């Protein structure tokens, strides 16, 4: 090998090394970024999902479960954020409960990263930002931007066809890594099925009365700005929808979970436990196929001229204009909806009340911003700090 050829190879190899190192650092940080959680006044204990199913213990999906016990007994509500980690309003709304909420009656259990594995990567080929930042009075807080599916590093390979258990229904092959297609899970199934099974065990053992799964949807998807409910929650969801639409200046509908569509939380949690299962969908233009630049700004402002244009052509199931769908609006919809469920549930079930305070509602989140309700990490004692 001549000196010139050797020099050429060293230069090219150095270029490759630079690419490898920069990409590797970004991916490593994305997978390992520790998101601090300030335990608010209402958090009485933090448990792990693995406590309910040993196969999950110590894995990437052994997520934190924040227990908020009321001073008085009552019902039990589960709030799931991060079933789909690319839908950050669901995670952030749950975050506001953990950092601000106090439970007077009953008990609230919150998961911020229901499928934690899915939060450790972004969509392959999707050009997603690996993270996003929310400004708070005490400084910026960084969060992982995740994906819809479990990280292939944690579950691989995908089959040609995904046969849902126990229904036997054929679903899209990739959804074998989708937590919201693998309910109720099974103990000897795939990693994602085991995660769903662990949650079902928790729901059954903790005697959860109402399970709420927080999501966001693209505007081209018909199930949007709505509460999807199991048949046992129809009355509750309809009343919540009416109350919110009347009192809170935003429209939210109700849809009934199809009896024969399997794998989703609103169907299977209700079918396989005594809990009423509800799923909330807020609009997220970031997920629309016709979006423009897939940036942090688009994620947080929900502004996108191409999605607006799609709306002008009648291609959307939700309205959008130049104001977009800011993250505060999407988070506020979720916090108000959860609080309204607690209130309506308590009216219908006076023997099992749920009384929650300290969590901002829709108008307050919009007025002050999400960051106003994220607490100062530096002022939290070590015993009042957890990490996602």
């Amino acid at each position, binding site marked *: 090998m001549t000196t010139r050829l050797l020099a050429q190879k060293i230069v090219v*190899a150095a270029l490759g090394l630079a690419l490898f190192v920069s990409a*590797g650092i970004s*991916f490593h940080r994305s*997978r390992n970024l520790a998101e601090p959680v300030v335990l608010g006044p209402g958090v009485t204990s933090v448990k792990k999902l693995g406590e309910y199913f040993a196969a999950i213990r110590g894995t990437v999906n052994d997520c934190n479960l924040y227990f908020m016990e009321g001073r008085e007994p009552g019902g039990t509500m589960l709030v799931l954020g991060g079933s789909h980690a690319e839908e950050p309003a669901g995670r952030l709304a749950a975050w506001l409960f953990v950092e601000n909420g106090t439970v007077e009656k009953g008990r609230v259990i919150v998961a911020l990263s229901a499928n934690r594995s899915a939060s450790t990567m972004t969509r392959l080929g999707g050009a997603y930002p690996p993270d996003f930042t929310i400004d708070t009075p005490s400084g910026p807080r960084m969060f992982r931007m995740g994906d819809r599916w479990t990280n292939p*590093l944690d579950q691989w390979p995908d089959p040609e066809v995904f046969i849902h258990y126990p229904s036997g229904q054929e679903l899209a092959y990739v959804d074998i890594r989708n937590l919201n297609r693998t309910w109720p899970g099974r103990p000897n199934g795939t990693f994602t099925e085991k995660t769903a099974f662990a949650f079902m065990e928790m729901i059954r053992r903790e005697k959860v009365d109402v399970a709420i799964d927080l999501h966001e949807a693209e505007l081209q998807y018909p199930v949007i700005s709505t509460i999807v409910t199991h048949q046992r929650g129809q009355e509750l969801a309809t009343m919540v929808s009416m109350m919110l639409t009347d009192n809170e200046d935003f429209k939210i509908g109700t849809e009934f979970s199809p009896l024969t569509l399997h794998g989703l939380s609103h169907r299977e949690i209700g079918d396989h436990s005594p809990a009423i299962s509800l799923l909330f969908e807020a609009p997220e233009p970031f997920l629309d196929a016709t979006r423009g630049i897939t940036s942090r700004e688009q994620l947080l402002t929900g502004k996108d001229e191409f999605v607006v244009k799609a709306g002008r052509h009648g291609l959307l199931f939700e309205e959008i204009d130049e104001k977009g769908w800011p993250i505060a609006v999407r988070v506020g919809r979720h916090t108000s909806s959860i609080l309204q469920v607690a209130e309506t549930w308590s009216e219908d079930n006076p023997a099992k009340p749920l009384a929650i305070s300290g969590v901002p509602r829709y108008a307050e989140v919009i007025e002050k911003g999400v960051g106003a309700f994220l607490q100062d990490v530096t002022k939290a004692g070590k015993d009042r700090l957890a990490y996602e």
Partner: protein
Amino acid sequence: MVTLFYYALVAFVSLLLVVNLVRSRSWERDVLYVIVLVPFLLRLLRLK
């Protein structure tokens, strides 16, 4: 088992790419091999 086989395959292809990189005489091919090699190494080290 299939995962082990998969990673063995990734390692083997990575090795082939490195061998080709060393043997090649054209800088265009060198660049091609290096760019193709990056995702293989990232997967081998379980970074993505």
